């Protein structure tokens, strides 16, 4: 193998491509293994707390060996994970496990000694490999991630060219890993924020600068499904009643403009004028989102958040939570919820099948347990717990 600029450029490209799309990891390992004349390659992770090793993107140059599926190799590998731990421990002891570091098998122990280890015999040699080289891309208390390649078992150690190539690729592995880490973390944080929004009993839509809907939470979807008044048409929100639609669009546009100018907006909720047959009373309110600083290369810039609330929907508060919070009995919780939902004692009694007098007695106990003295005070307490404590999962 001769490493010229063109080959180097190709391999570096593969590394960053794998950072950009998770699926490309296999292709990256394959390309480096074949082009640099290795016998096999893989990304190896060690969960340091649980002392669990696992292998990803495994590729073997030998066609016969490759017939075993990656799953089979993973199983073989897992059987040897204890043996591998020995090697991990030596590497750690020799302070080789450091992000950015590249080392060969011979840095751990002389090859003849390595060949006698169980891991080498039962896993590495099975893959047709002998000497190997690793680049550590991450190393902290939680995980070690290493990209590893094995030299063919032909009695010769790794060539100088192969070692040189891996040392040249090392900073690129690290930068690519850093990019992948940022992508993964941002995605997870976004998903957890979305999950929080999904737990709300209010519809929430996030709109881009061109008013396209970028996100809607579960309640938002429910509102769209349950009412024919509001729908998403060509990616933007529409109301089928012209006057109300104008109102929505004006609100949204004002919020988008405010976001663009970085201005605060005097926002006001608006109730849609819907015919009674629709069976819903929708209140909408648009807020501007602060824009990120700097020139954005992102395809769609979020600019507006729209709340949609269906007034005919009772706030949902599971009885069990209320009972847990204030140590209420089931019937006390039922009465407390009735009051919070704005019902009269007579209505609650009828619903529960109690007499009004019994209901009043129960309510008195609820007052005592919740440290409240009036129905509106009780309603305020329960409603301030918030309708988010509704299990939407």
């Amino acid at each position: 193998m001769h490493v010229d600029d063109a080959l180097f450029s190709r391999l570096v490209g593969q590394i960053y491509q794998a950072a950009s799309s998770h699926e490309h990891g296999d292709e990256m390992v394959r390309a480096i293994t074949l082009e640099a004349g290795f016998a096999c390659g893989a990304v190896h992770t060690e969960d340091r707390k649980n002392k669990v090793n696992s292998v990803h993107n495994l590729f073997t140059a030998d066609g016969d060996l490759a017939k075993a599926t990656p799953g089979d190799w993973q199983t073989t590998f897992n059987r040897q994970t204890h043996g591998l731990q020995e090697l991990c421990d030596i590497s750690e002891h020799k302070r080789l496990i450091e992000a950015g570091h590249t080392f060969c098998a011979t840095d751990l122990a002389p090859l003849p000694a390595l060949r006698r280890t169980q891991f080498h015999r039962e896993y590495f040699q099975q893959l047709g490999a002998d000497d190997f080289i690793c680049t550590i891309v991450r190393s902290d208390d939680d995980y070690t991630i290493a990209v590893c390649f094995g030299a063919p078992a032909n009695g010769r150690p790794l060539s100088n060219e192969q070692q040189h190539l891996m040392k040249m690729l090392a900073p690129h592995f690290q930068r690519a890993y850093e990019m992948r880490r940022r992508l993964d973390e941002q995605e997870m944080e976004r998903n957890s924020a979305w999950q929080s929004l999904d737990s709300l009993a209010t519809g929430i839509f996030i709109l881009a600068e061109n008013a396209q809907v970028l996100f809607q939470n579960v309640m938002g979807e429910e509102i769209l499904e349950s009412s024919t008044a509001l729908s998403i048409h060509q990616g933007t929100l529409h109301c089928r009643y012209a006057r109300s639609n104008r109102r929505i669009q004006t609100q949204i546009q004002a919020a988008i403009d405010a976001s663009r100018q970085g201005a605060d907006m005097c926002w006001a909720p608006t109730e849609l004028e819907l015919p009674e047959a629709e069976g819903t009373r929708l209140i909408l309110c648009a807020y501007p989102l602060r824009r990120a600083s700097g020139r954005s290369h992102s395809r769609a810039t979020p600019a507006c958040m729209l709340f949609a609330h269906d007034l005919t929907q009772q706030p949902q508060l599971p009885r069990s939570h209320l009972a847990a919070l204030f140590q209420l009995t089931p019937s006390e919780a039922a009465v407390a919820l009735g009051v919070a939902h704005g019902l009269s004692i007579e209505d609650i009694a009828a619903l529960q099948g109690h007499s009004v007098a019994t209901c009043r007695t129960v309510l008195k106990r609820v007052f005592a347990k919740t440290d409240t003295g009036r129905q509106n005070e009780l309603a305020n307490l329960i409603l301030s717990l918030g309708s988010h404590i509704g299990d939407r999962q």
Partner: protein
Amino acid sequence: MSQLIGLAYECASHPEVEADFLHAVCTALGLDSATVILVDLKQRTNTMLSMYVDDPGVSKETLAALVADYNRRFSQFNPLTEICIDKGLLVSGNTIFSEDMVPHPMLQRTAFYNEFFQQQGWYDHAGIVSIADGKTAVTINFASKAETYPFTPAARKLLRMLAGHLARAHTLRRQLETRRVTRDAALQSLDALTFGLLILDHKRKVLFQNRPAREIIDSNKALDIRRRELRCDLPRSQKLLKDQVSMAIDAALHGIPMHWSPTQLDLQDTGQRPVAVCAYPLPTSGSPFAAAHPACLLFLRDLNAEQGLPEDQLIDMFELTPAEARIAQEIANGYSLEHAAERMGHTLGTSRTMLKRVYAKTGTNRQNELACLVMSLAGLLHPVSE
């Protein structure tokens, strides 16, 4: 070579090193200057985003003035842009040499060449299309002052090699920025909620806290975030809090269903209402590439805070008078009519009449019903900006 490619990718996560990258390319190829141009393929206009000149004597201000001058004079009028679009040269990863557009002698006769290129002392140029998506294209252009074969075969080869990397780097930059802005928008939306919300990672560290959470933590002496962990000074409450969070994180990490329920933290002994907390597990992906895994949502509610809808909102929505809105709010916040009358300096009779008008205008019949209406609206209509 390795460093040059590295810098191309470094620009994706750190745009501020763009000048270093352009400098490195110019040095490697013996070129004099570089520009980054954004082309609007629909409008057929172009905007110069930045300019680099391989001359330490040229100040940042001079460069900014040159960029502004170009955008004023040539943004609508750059025949090269037109030619590139017509010839279909603006394809991601493509390298464009001037003869791909028009033979050099002809180029030299164009007004654009005379009025812009020559003014900078440029003779020839080459461009790399880093991204093109049907609506816009970004090109990175290099210019040379040397008249004799400025783009040698070796230089051409290097530029072609860089092109693929620049295209990929730009895709990565877009991915990074798109994820960042969508994440920020989602987190900002959480600031508008009326209750506190924290996102914790698998080690109980706070990854995010929304505005109400900050307010609750700031206003409660017993609550504190220390070393990125939410803590309570009172041992009993601290234990409850820790149990809630640990249970949710365990459920998240091991994918086991959780029977969760909210709990109360007594933070003072002054007979005030406590703070309610409730932890939910977040399923984690377990990607070894991420340093922190969001594993738990923690909801906080200060049961003392008045949560009613602001008065001006009530006035707008139900056409109430200011006094009626005030009374509606007092009732929603759980106070008695006597208390409201006293606070507003009215007789009980006047207050009662007013409340009746509020009932009529809001379509309610009882105090708890009015409280329910105002409170459920309040959850929706929390002001975002101070």
